[in-house]
């Protein structure tokens, strides 16, 4: 991972990240201005002031939806008549296909997240925090636990932090390993030990979240920004961005590019510049399209390369900036297989709560599989179109997983219809040949044990 901008104040999130990616420990963190925000904020500035700065900063959530963080926080009842806990939860479940930005922050600079969380908790007057971390992120979880212990030793966590009267306990909780656990209300259910089914909103977690108490869930990257903003001011943060959005953003690319990776750049950096950082496409591969913000975002095509990577611009182009980590479709990969792979992933990761997603996604996957295997019929394109309308519209399903799953499919058909038609008309496809894809019902259910067997009848 390379770092392009060298002034630490212009790349606040990664300024401590070393080329060798060894984690920054407490000493190194503090040596580089670490916990300064903590010292200058707790007990010295009012939570209301901090909230105002976050609101003014125009920080938008980095977890995918881009919801303004200050606004989200302002729904938390501050003069709570019913005494009890308030919770701050860091969403470190990062399972969006193609996304690996939070991991970088977690593994390389755990203290940054902790400082961000303490300042956030102070602002919200939350007394308990959880870092809900993807189960595979073992190293990150280990580093966080150590960092938390160091903070306790220093009095940065626990009761009466730095004599401010503010108490904050922080726990690391490893996810059981399902994509849906990243959805904030499913995450909350999971934290409570329940099935990871999303909750209906309203009530929003800000009012009734974990254990029925006011709860804020934010992405790792979002929280890592907080103490920088509180320390350097809203204006500073606004100035970091290029377009209408504020701050920096971790952008990433995966696929057939020369240097897949992740970079902290001003938010609103043109897509073409990010591709340039990745060294362009690999020799012999052409860019056909890309998912700008992870597996659940709509395709964009080379004609979109000059767009700025910010929420509104990408939104207007018909996709979503999502997590800001792009997945590249090259000219040697068939869009049918590419999309099928994603739809199968989402079908597998459906929590099973609502019908369009639970039963509709496997149905879409089955149709895609038939098309890919050369068993498709012309009617299948209509079926897929129906499915996209059925599963893809927000509100048709209980949460955003299913509509997200339809985004690459819908846009894939829109932009790469020829791939689908090649399969339908020729029964096979030169691009798919070498990938040797196996049918869902042959591979997926093999070896399934236990009560719920997907044994085909």
């Amino acid at each position: 991972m390379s770092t392009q901008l060298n002034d630490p104040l212009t790349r606040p999130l990664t300024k401590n990240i070393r080329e060798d990616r060894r984690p920054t420990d407490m000493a190194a963190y503090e040596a580089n201005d670490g916990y300064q925000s903590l010292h200058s904020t707790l007990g010295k500035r009012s939570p209301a002031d901090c909230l105002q700065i976050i609101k003014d900063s125009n920080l938008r959530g980095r977890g995918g939806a881009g919801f303004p963080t200050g606004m989200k926080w302002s729904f938390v009842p501050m003069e709570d008549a019913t005494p009890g806990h308030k919770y701050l939860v860091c969403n470190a479940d990062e399972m969006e296909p193609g996304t690996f930005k939070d991991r970088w922050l977690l593994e390389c600079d755990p203290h940054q997240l902790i400082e961000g969380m303490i300042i956030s908790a102070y602002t919200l007057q939350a007394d308990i925090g959880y870092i809900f971390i993807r189960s595979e992120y073992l190293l990150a979880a280990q580093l966080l636990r150590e960092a938390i212990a160091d903070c306790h030793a220093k009095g940065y966590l626990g009761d009466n932090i730095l004599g401010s009267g503010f108490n904050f306990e922080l726990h690391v909780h490893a996810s059981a390993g399902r994509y849906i656990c990243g959805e904030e209300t499913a995450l909350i259910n999971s934290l409570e030990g329940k099935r990871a089914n999303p909750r209906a909103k309203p009530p929003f977690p800000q009012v009734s979240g974990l254990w029925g108490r006011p709860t804020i869930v934010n992405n790792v990257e979002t929280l890592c920004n907080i103490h920088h903003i509180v320390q350097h001011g809203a204006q500073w943060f606004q100035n970091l961005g290029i377009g209408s959005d504020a701050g920096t953003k971790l952008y990433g690319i995966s696929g057939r590019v020369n240097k897949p990776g992740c970079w902290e750049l001003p938010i609103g950096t043109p897509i073409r510049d990010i591709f340039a950082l990745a060294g362009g496409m690999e020799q012999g591969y052409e860019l056909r399209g890309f998912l700008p913000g992870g597996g659940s975002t709509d395709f964009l095509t080379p004609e979109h390369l000059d767009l700025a990577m910010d929420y509104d611009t990408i939104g207007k182009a018909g996709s979503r900036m999502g997590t800001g980590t792009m997945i590249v479709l090259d000219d040697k990969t068939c869009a049918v297989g590419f999309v099928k792979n994603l739809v199968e992933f989402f079908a597998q990761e459906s929590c099973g709560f609502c019908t369009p997603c639970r039963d509709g996604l496997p149905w879409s996957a089955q149709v895609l599989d038939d098309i890919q295997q050369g068993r498709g019929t012309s009617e299948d394109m209509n079926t897929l179109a129906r499915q996209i309308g059925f599963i893809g519209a927000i509100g048709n399903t209980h949460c955003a997983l299913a509509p997200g799953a339809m985004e690459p499919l819908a846009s894939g058909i829109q932009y790469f219809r020829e791939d689908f038609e090649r399969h339908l008309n020729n029964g096979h496809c030169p691009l798919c040949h070498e990938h040797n894809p196996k049918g869902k019902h042959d591979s997926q259910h093999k070896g399934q044990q236990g009560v719920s067997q997907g044994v085909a009848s």
Partner: protein
Amino acid sequence: MPVITIDNQEYSVKEGDNLLQACLGLGLDLPYFCWHPDMGSIGACRQCAVVQYQNTEDYRAGSRGRIVMGCMTQVTDGAIFSLNGDKASEFRKTIVESLMLNHPHDCPVCAEGGECHLQDMTVMTGHRDRHYRGKKNTHRNQYLGPLIHHEMNRCITCYRCTRYYNNYAGGKDLAAMAAHDHVYFGRHQEGVLESEFAGNLVEVCPTGVFTDKSLVNDYSRKWDLQSAPSVCTHCAVGCNTLPGERYGKLKRVHNRYNDEVNGYFLCDRGRFGAKFVNSDKRINNPGLRDEHGRYNIIDPHQALHQLVEACQGDNNIAAIGSPRASVEANFLLKTLAGEQHYSPGFNAQEQSLAQLALSLQQHSAATIPSIKDIECADAIFILGEDLTHSAPRIALALRQSVRNKAYALAAELKLQPWQDAAVRNLAQDQRSPLFVAAVTDTRLDDIAEQCHHLAPDDIARLGYAVAEQISGKANASDEPANTIAQALLSAQRPLIIAGSSCGNAAIMQAAAAIADALALRKNENAGNSMLCLTLPEANSLGQAMLSPNEAPSIEALAERAYKIDTLIVLENDLFRRAPAAVVDKLLQSVTTLIVLDSLETPTLATSQLALPAASVAESEGTIVSLEGRAQRYFPVSECQGERRASWAWLLACLKELGHPEAANIHRFDDITLACSAAQPMLKGITLAAPDHFYRNAGVKIPRQPQRYSGRTAMRANVSVHEPKQTEDDETALAYTMEGLNRHQPGSLLPFVWSPGWNSNQSLHKFQTETGGPLKGGTAGKRLLDNRQNNNNQQKNSQQAVATTAPAAFQASAGQWLLVPRQRIFGSDELSSYSDNLAELLSDASIEINSADASLLQVKNGDGLSLGENLACLRVVINNTIPQGCAAYSVGIAGTFNLTLGQRVSLQKASDWQRPKQADVIASDGGAHV
């Protein structure tokens, strides 16, 4: 009331309702699965989708609107919806198509077929052609015990089962497992479902996953079942039931909705125990014992003649009625024998407690709550009852009462009670306070704020202490009385529950004292207080009302030192009620014992003349539930063999005898009328249901659905000619499918069915609103209704309430106080004759705490002999039992010589062996057995 527009038509709807409720209430057919009228919405199935428009402009501009879920959308004034537009209809159709991807197409062999909500919704949405070409997922089924059959392939993943079983009924052993399209609903391991309310899964599951095992094994379609409104006779709660019959057999029992009593749910004793009517212990013919002691079948005329003979002239007659027989049969028996010679059929303890319950309720300043009222309670104190086993449906209601705290919290966030998941997530384990003082652990301990395990007299003492706290007469530091009192005092609708389980009058007195003190409290909730007193049998309270004055108990009859020429026993097994010595003594003084009963009980087996009585499923009658609700049950089918309703035997006898009181009694209704005239307290019983003159649009109410089939064929082995349908001269129901099952009074609803709605979900067509009364009114007539005047503080309360607490319990060396262990399966007489439950019955046991066990040098599974050969029972060590007390399984064979509250010696039985019994014991997990 908000006005909403649905497909261009304006409707006024109820504030706060969701759109699905509103649509169903308006008679519009909006399909649904996961929503349940008593469990609210979660938005899982997406079947109830409608299209909502932003506003009139949006609608006029031809916008396509957006899909919203009816069950998750609160109605607001001015909202505009389309239910029948293409977008919504297409969506709903695709939902069904998706649900059918993995659903087996096996309706013909599915036990749900013909009353399947999935079938109905499939037809309703118009789904027909299958587009999916993939293979279906299949699952393995589980053994879930003798009552419930499991067929997981039919699951449509609506989550109703787990929501019911875990969230609503407090079960722990059913779960949704795995994810995506593999979600599996079952137990972590095969085994008997632990909940005492598991049977409701059969009605909650909208498909054929959970079905009634005994029905599956001896199957009939719903459309082939003949049914009639009935009342459960297995405890005093009086749940309304819908038994279904075919080929002369009771095939199954479904819930019969009564908004004030059982609502949507029954307990498993009621649902499955009613199969006793198919028992091979049923009596079909009259029997007369000859000089050799053998029974000979005689014909009914002879039998009647024998009966009349025995009652003739100056014969010295005595009669024993029964709290499990109808008011009418008891009334005739009392008429036949004369007041002085009629015993209501209680033992002495039962009798005094039933009378006490009656008088406490009559004189209480508190309200006598219905089950629905109980569900509204926001603080509860239970004294001396393990309700899950003694009045099960009340326990299920209390699991809802404790959620009132959640609803209050939800209201602050403007969440409606039907927003089920949101309300539960908000409140988590915050509950309205429930306190239990009992002699053992109880099945409600898991939701109780405090449980106190005390000897009966100490329970009463705690009760009195609480009452004193409430009336401000005691020292506030007295714990736990103060905590309990404070919780009750600050509640808007506090509820006190006690009952006769412990055989201890002081407990009931204390409960009444608390309820009165609460009613008379001086704070803003003054006047609000509820008192619920449970009794053991379906007509216990009715019997107390029929003979309110000093009437002889079984012991009292036995003590009478004169010869009884004829003793008539009505539907009563004396050997269960009193120690064998007492019964033997009584019977020794009897020349002719005549027993009318439906089952071959030990008492019947000693009779000279046995008369086969119709069971609850073949006769009509009124019974009075513990809340004083008179309810009528109707015959589901004609009497088989030579069985007659008990009242019919007795009426025939009275007629033969030319008894003056019978002069104007010609049929069942006349008995009800005569009884209501004779006993002021029972005045209201005629209003329990319409009489036999009632006609619906000129015709009687059919017991058979329109599609009832095989009227000729089912008798073809006897005769190929279709017989004339049996006339029912006694009731407003007919043994036919002709007639109108709509708009009639709620007490006459024999089944629920409506065009397009073949399943029990059709109920909403009969309701005024979700959870509201039936359109024809709530069944039953409350005889003790003091709900109107409960604010009348002048009312002379405390009359019946003794004001002094008993002395504290003292364990005495070598003597143990007998306290009860109730069991939902076994403690009730009739249900224990049900084949269904046989596997779940366990032998009788005695529970003592470990200190007593080591004193007695016994361990779990040893035998203990009680008193002088009173009983010998299996030991169970249970440390919740106070030292010096011993809890025995009441109502279970082997314990009938024991009396609650008695002190007995205990001794290790040296050569004791556990009686042979079935392998599986359901309640092993829950209650100690």
